[in-house]
C-alpha cells in the first residue's frame, strides 16, 4: 500500500511538471498588455525613464524576457518554494489574494456537495429499485435535465424569478447594501442569503451526474448473484436493499465522492462570475480577462494539483473501501 501510494505520488509529480510546462507555454502566448500599460503609466511620471526602458525592466522583473523553457524553470524554482509572485491585477501576493477568496468558493462547494449527496443518492437508489417505473423515468429525466442545463441559463432564470420578479434575493454580490450595519450573526445570515442562488444553480447542474452514477451502480448490484441469494433466503426487501445492496453500492460512490473532495476548492468559474461571488473562480475569471499572468498561472496549476490529488484519493479509497482490490 505504502509502495503504491509513493509510486502514484511520484507519477503525479512528473505529470504536474509537464502540465505546468504546457500551461506556462500557453500563458506566455497571452497578450501582456498589462506590462505595456504599466510601463506607459510609469513612463509618464516626472523624471522617469523612457517607455521602452520600463517595458524591458518590467519584462525582466516578471521573467518575460527569457525564453519559454528558461522562464518556466525560473517560475518553477520559485513555485516550489510556494512563491508565485505578485498578482498584477490585485497588486498583492498571489497567495495572499488566494487565501482571502478561497473560503467563499469552499463554502459554496461544500454546501453544494452535501446537498448533492442528500438528494442524489436516495433518488438514484429509488430509481434503481423500481427500474422502468414512473419514479425511474422521473429521476432519469430530472438527472438528464440537470446535466443538460447550461449553468448560465439556469442562473439567469433563477435571477429572473427570484431577484427580478419576486425580489426576494439580490442579483449580484456576496453581501447586501447595509452589510456594515449588521451584527456579526446578521452578517453571516446576509452572506448565506446571497449564496442561496449560486448554491441552487450548482446543485441542480451537478446533481444529475451523481444521481445517474448511483442508479447505474445500484442496478448492477441488484442484478448480482448475492442479491438474488439474499432474496432467495427470504430476507425482507428492506433488509436486502439497505444492508446488502446499499453497502455494495457505496464502494464506487465513496470512491467517486472521495475523488471529488479536492474539487471543493476549485471554485465554480461560471456560476461565481454570474453571481459575482468573490471566490477563486470569479477572481481568476477577472484575472484571465485582465491578462494577470501570475495569478492565472497559479490558478491553473492549482487546479491541476486538485485533479491529480482527486485521482490519488480515489485510487487509495478504492483500495481502502473494497477489500477485494486490496487482496489483488
Amino acid at each position, binding site marked *: 500500500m505504502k509502495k503504491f501510494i509513493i509510486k502514484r505520488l511520484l*507519477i503525479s509529480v*512528473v*505529470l*504536474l511538471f*509537464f*502540465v505546468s510546462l*504546457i*500551461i506556462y507555454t*500557453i*500563458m506566455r*502566448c*497571452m*497578450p501582456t*498588455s498589462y506590462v505595456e500599460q504599466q510601463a506607459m503609466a510609469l513612463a509618464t511620471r516626472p523624471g522617469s525613464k523612457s517607455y521602452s526602458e520600463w517595458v524591458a525592466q518590467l519584462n525582466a522583473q516578471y521573467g518575460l524576457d527569457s525564453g519559454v523553457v528558461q522562464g518556466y524553470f525560473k517560475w518553477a524554482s520559485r513555485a516550489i518554494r510556494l512563491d508565485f509572485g505578485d498578482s498584477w491585477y490585485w497588486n498583492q501576493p498571489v497567495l495572499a489574494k488566494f487565501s482571502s477568496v478561497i473560503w467563499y468558493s469552499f463554502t459554496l462547494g461544500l454546501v453544494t456537495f452535501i446537498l448533492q449527496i442528500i438528494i442524489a443518492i436516495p433518488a438514484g437508489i429509488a430509481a434503481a429499485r423500481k*427500474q422502468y417505473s414512473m419514479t425511474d*423515468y422521473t429521476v*432519469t*429525466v430530472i438527472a*438528464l*435535465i440537470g*446535466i*443538460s*442545463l*447550461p*449553468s*448560465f*441559463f439556469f442562473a*439567469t*432564470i433563477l*435571477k*429572473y424569478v427570484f431577484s*427580478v420578479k419576486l425580489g426576494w434575493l439580490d*442579483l449580484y454580490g456576496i453581501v447586501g447594501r447595509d452589510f456594515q450595519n449588521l451584527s456579526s450573526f446578521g452578517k453571516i445570515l446576509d452572506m448565506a442569503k446571497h449564496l442561496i442562488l449560486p448554491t441552487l444553480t450548482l446543485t441542480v447542474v451537478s446533481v444529475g451526474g451523481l444521481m445517474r452514477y448511483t442508479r447505474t451502480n445500484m*442496478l448492477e448490484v441488484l*442484478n448480482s448473484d448475492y442479491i438474488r441469494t439474499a432474496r432467495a433466503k427470504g430476507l425482507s426487501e428492506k433488509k436486502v436493499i439497505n444492508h446488502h445492496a446499499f453497502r455494495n453500492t457505496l464502494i464506487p460512490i465513496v470512491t467517486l465522492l472521495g475523488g471529488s473532495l479536492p474539487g471543493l476548492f*476549485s471554485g465554480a*468559474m*461560471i456560476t461565481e*462570475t454570474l453571481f459575482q461571488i468573490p471566490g477563486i473562480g470569479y477572481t*481568476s*475569471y477577472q484575472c*484571465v*480577462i485582465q*491578462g494577470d499572468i501570475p495569478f*492565472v498561472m497559479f*490558478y*491553473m496549476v492549482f*487546479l*491541476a494539483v486538485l*485533479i*491529480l490529488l482527486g485521482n490519488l484519493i480515489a485510487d487509495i479509497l478504492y483500495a481502502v473501501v473494497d477489500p477485494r482490490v486490496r487482496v489483488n
Partner: protein
Amino acid sequence: MSKEIKNTNEVTENKNEMHLDDANRVRVLSPGMMVLKRFLRNRLAIVGIVIIVSMFLFSFVGGMLCPYSQSQVFYTTEEIRKDYAGATKIDQFQFQIADGAQLPSDIYSKILIATSTGKTTFESREGALYGLDKLGENVYVVYSLEEAKLLLKKNAAYQEALEAGRNSFESDGTLYFADADENAYTATEVAVASMSSFTGYAADAKFSYEFYKNALAAVAGGEKSFEADGTNYTVDGDVISLDGSEYALLLDLNFNAANSGVYLSPAYKAAAIEAFESGAKSFTFADDNGTDVEYEIENKNGQYIIKKFQETRVIDTYASPSKAHWVGTDANGMDLLARLMYGGRISLLIGFVVIFIEVFIGMVIGGIAGFFGGHVDNLLMRLVDVVYCVPSMPLYLILGSIMDFYQASATARIYLLCVVMAVIGWVGIARIVRGQILSLREQEFMVAAEATGISTYRRIFKHLIPNVIPQLIVFASMGLGDVILAEATLSFLGLGIKYPAASWGSIINAVNDSYVMTNYLFVWLPAGLFILLTVLAFNFIGDGLRDAFDPKMKR
C-alpha cells in the same frame, strides 16, 4: 416478459398447425436489428431523436427558408420630436437683388450703420459708393453711385423728389441720386432692402425684382395697388392679391424649414405667428391630408423653434415578437429567429466537428495504447493523464482572450474553437477505447483470431474496432451535448463565437445587461431553451443507445 408469453400464446392459438421449432415462429434478428429494436422501444430516446431532427430541420432547412439573414439589420420608423421649422424676427436687412447686379460683401453692416446714423450714402470696403433711397419704414432702394456733374438746384425732378422725401430722381433719361449735402451722382439700381420676407401662396411662386420693389414701395407707402411686370396687384395690409385671389404675404419673421423640401405655406405661417403673439406653447395646423398636427413652440429670445413629432428611421432594437419578426429582434436590430437558426447551425456543427476529431484522435491513441500495451501504453496513457489535468475552462478563456488580442475573424474563431475543444476533449475517448481493447484482447475470440494467424490489420479493424464502436457511439452522443454546452458557455462569456456570427450562447450573452434580462425575456429565453433541449436530446439518445447496446441492464 409476461407480455411476450401472452403474445406467443396467442400465436399458438391462431396457428395450431405450427410446430414448436417452426422457423416462422421465431424471427431471428441480427444483433444490429436487436439493438435498433431495443432502441426504438425506449421512449426517451425517441423523444431525443425527434428533438434532434427538428433542431436540424429548424437550423438548416429553416435557415434556408427564412427570408432574413443572420446579420441583416432591420429598421423601423419611430415618432421622434424633431425640429420642424424655425422662425426669427428679421432684424437685418433682407436684400432682393436686381437682375445682374452684385452687392458688396459688407453691405449688411454698412447699411445698418448708415441707416442708424441717418446717412444716405456709404462706402463699401472695396471703395465703391452706395446710396440709400428710403421708400418707407425700413424699406430702402440701394443704388450704386458714381459722381456726376449736375446742378441740382435748378432741376425740377430733384425738387419733386425732395418734396416726396426721395433721394433719387430721373432726369433726361438718366437716374440720378442726391445725398443730403446735395451732391449729385449717377445711380444704378442694385437692390431693394427691407426687413420683411415674402411668402407666395403657391408653393412654386417666384417673384421678380420689380415685384419685390414695387410691392415693398406700395406697402410702405400705404397704397392700395401697384403694378409690376405689366400686372396689377392689390394690396390689403400685408397681403398682396392678384385678380382677387391671395398671391403673396409680407412678414417681418423669417421662417426656415428644418428639412429642405418642406414648404411652409402662408396660412401655416399665419397660424404660427398667431401662436407666437398669443404666447401659446403649441398650436395645431392641418397638414396636406387635412389631419390636425400638433406643433410645439419653443421661444428663445425672439427666435422661435417649432417642433413636431416626426417619423424617423431608426434601428429596430429589441422589437417584441410580431408577424414580421416571430421572436423579435436583438440589440443590433437583427431578426432573432434567423439568428437562432444560424446559431443552431453553428452550435450543431461545432458539436459534430469536435466530436468527430475527438473520436478520431481518441480512437487512434487509445487503440494503439490498448493493442500494443507495455511501454507504448504506459507512455500514451501518461500523455492522456497530462492532457486530462489541464483545466479546460480557464484554458478556453485564455485562448478566447488571445483570439481577442489578435482580432481573429468570426470564422477563424469557429475553426480554432473546434480544434482546441477537440484537442482538450479526446482523452476521455482514448481511455474508453483503451480499456475496452484491453479487456477484449484477453477474450477468447481474439485469442482465436490470433491463432488463425490473420494479420494485425485485420485483427484490429475486423475484430476489435467493431466491438468498441457501441461504447464509442454512446460516449460520442453524450459528448456531443457536453461540447455544445461548452461552446455555449464560451460564447456566453463573449469569448467564443462573436458578432456578426451567431450562436445560441452568444444570443443569451445579452442577459449580461440586466435591463435586457428584466425586460426582454424573448431575447434570451428561446436560445437557452434550445440549448437545453438539444443537449437533453443528445443525452436521451446516448442513454437509450447505452441501454440498447447493453441488454444486461434490462431485467
